[in-house]
């Protein structure tokens, strides 16, 4: 029996038109305690008002700088961190209502950045890969694990009884992918899954991820800080800044026009590949502000070249661009009624 035949994801319920995942108004604030009595002194507003959906079979790329809430969002999605507020709806079933956490984790699996820290050093590779399937009570987890190892390019006869420290980073990341896929998930969240790998190994793993997506009909959420990688693998890109979504758009659309000033800065910060046309001026000054006390209004206004009074007080809403409803942006420049002096004109050149 081939590995494709053993792959048994949960049944599709809503048909292809229904998004596989809908996230509504997700929020997570981490308390910062301190002082003599350990009282909560402040809150890290890690994820705020985050809403998005992922269609069946698509790959959604999430980009943003450290501290923008990418990884917290990923952890909230599979319940590794408890959300404060918001809804997570997987294929039409809301988490906590018609869907238990255990069932959600069967359908949604995650691959993390640090391939070593996420494997139990005392378990052999085979036991690690089979572990989830065993917990979920799937039939013959070891056999399934061997097949999955073989599928990700690790010969089970050579690797099954090795320990994580005996493998290279690329091999360990293949183990993590095999472990995620052993559960037959429909959605895989890849949180900086290739970032720690060397470039030549990264390309191999990206090829593998592309093949697996096609073979098992997977949907990916691909989190990365590398825009080139995100562009390569994603259908749509979601840009986060300080815990909020600032722009969501199909890859080609966002590559042609970055509608949010932050997205534009992020794109201009990519190193040039042309020795005759190197970057002349940094697009932004300073570091991202602290998410403990994020700026009021539009959180980007402290670093934005186009900020006006309205940006300091009013929170911009995520809305479609005129003429391109798939391209969503949260910026007063695009909202004619925002009160920004250049409202409705888009981002100046």
């Amino acid at each position, binding site marked *: 029996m081939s590995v494709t035949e053993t792959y048994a994801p949960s049944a599709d319920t809503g048909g292809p038109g229904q998004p596989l995942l809908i996230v509504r108004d997700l929020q997570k604030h981490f308390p910062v305690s301190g002082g003599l009595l350990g009282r909560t002194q402040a809150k890290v507003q890690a994820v705020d008002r985050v809403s998005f959906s992922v269609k069946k079979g698509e790959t959604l790329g999430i980009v943003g*700088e450290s501290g923008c809430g990418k990884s917290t969002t990923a952890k909230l999605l599979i319940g590794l961190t408890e959300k404060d507020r918001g809804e997570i709806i997987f294929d039409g079933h809301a988490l906590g209502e018609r869907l238990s956490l255990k069932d959600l984790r069967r359908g949604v699996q995650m691959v993390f950045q640090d391939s070593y820290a996420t494997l139990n050093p005392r378990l052999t590779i085979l036991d690690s890969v089979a572990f989830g399937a065993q917990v979920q009570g799937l039939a013959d987890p070891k056999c399934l694990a061997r097949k999955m190892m073989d599928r990700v390019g690790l010969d089970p006869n050579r690797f099954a009884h090795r320990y994580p420290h005996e493998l290279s980073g690329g091999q360990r990341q293949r183990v993590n992918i095999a472990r995620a896929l052993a559960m037959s998930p429909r959605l895989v969240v890849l949180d900086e899954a290739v970032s720690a790998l*060397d*470039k030549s*190994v990264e390309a191999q793993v990206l090829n593998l991820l*592309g093949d697996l997506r096609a073979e098992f009909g997977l949907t990916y959420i691909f989190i990365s800080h590398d825009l080139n990688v995100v562009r390569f693998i994603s259908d749509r890109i979601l840009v986060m800044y300080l815990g909020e979504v600032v722009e969501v758009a199909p890859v080609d659309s966002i590559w042609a026009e970055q509608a949010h000033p932050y997205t534009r800065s992020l794109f201009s910060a990519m*190193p040039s590949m042309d020795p005759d046309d190197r970057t002349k001026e940094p697009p932004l000054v300073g*570091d991202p502000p602290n998410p403990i006390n994020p700026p009021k209004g539009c959180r980007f206004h402290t670093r934005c070249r186009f900020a006006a009074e309205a940006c300091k007080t009013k929170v911009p809403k995520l809305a479609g661009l005129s003429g391109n409803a798939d391209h969503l942006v949260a910026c007063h420049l695009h909202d004619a009624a925002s009160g920004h002096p250049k409202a409705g004109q888009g981002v100046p050149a």
Partner: protein
Amino acid sequence: MTKLLEINDLTVRFSGKRTVHAINNVSLSMEQGETLALLGESGSGKSVTLKALLGLLPPKRSSVEGSIHVNGTDVLSLSGKALQRYRGAEVSMVFQEPALALDPVYTVGHQIAESVMRHKGVSKADALSTALDMLDRVRIPSANRRLHSYPHELSGGMRQRVMIALALACRPRLLLADEPTTALDATVQIQILLLLRELQKEFGMGVIFVTHDIGVAVEISERVAVMYAGQIVEEGTTREIIRDGRHPYTQGLLAANLHDVARGARLNAIPGAPPALEVKPDACPFAPRCSHVMPACRAALPPMVTTEGRRRVACLHADAVVAAE
């Protein structure tokens, strides 16, 4: 004028539980004021080369052969006071993780001043004013206040600026930068790269910039040396390497950068992984992963072919590969 840097046949071997031939017969030279990127993946010997240059390799566990001359000084023969004088004054280094490289219990002003007092023999007040001037030059806002900050009070980008200020405080002729922007966010990385570019011009120092990111190499350096398995496999101007990389490994690295790759297309990935270097390579170390491999590649080390000027490639296909592509 003496060459800024002359490395001849540098070989570094680590011994212990297992032996690692980290650097194998590396030769490299730099003119005064040149910027060179050492490009390669983890384990290729980039950082070990920098550490050898500063005499930072653990003496009991490493054996170093060959020679290193910086401005005519034989670095490998230095020890004690002479080595202390050389470090920081002639050559200094910026590390990847400034949070680990800075001392958490002293203010940043104190740390910079300490290095200035040590090397220039000036009073503490003068050293502090040099420190203030350096913080200004690395564009730290309200430098006067920051002088009295501890490292943990600064953001990652600010800490790296402090690290650069510290490294440049004694005006070294050669700055070594070991992936100084890898831990930073993209929008901060580009700021630091442009800052280093400006300071390099202003101070006229030479820079060796270690990176695994070709884009970063393009932004910072005039020349690029590509390292693989403890050897330099190709060297040329940044333009030559980007436009006309000759070594199959360089070509693979360029392709893996994913710049301008069609979305969803299959990547032309280099198969396999770099060698473990437990034995000293006696054939082309890239041969097991190379798509152009011939029997001769596995028989002996490929000679370093100098094509024109200072452009060199260690590949039997140095000319033919280009034709085949």
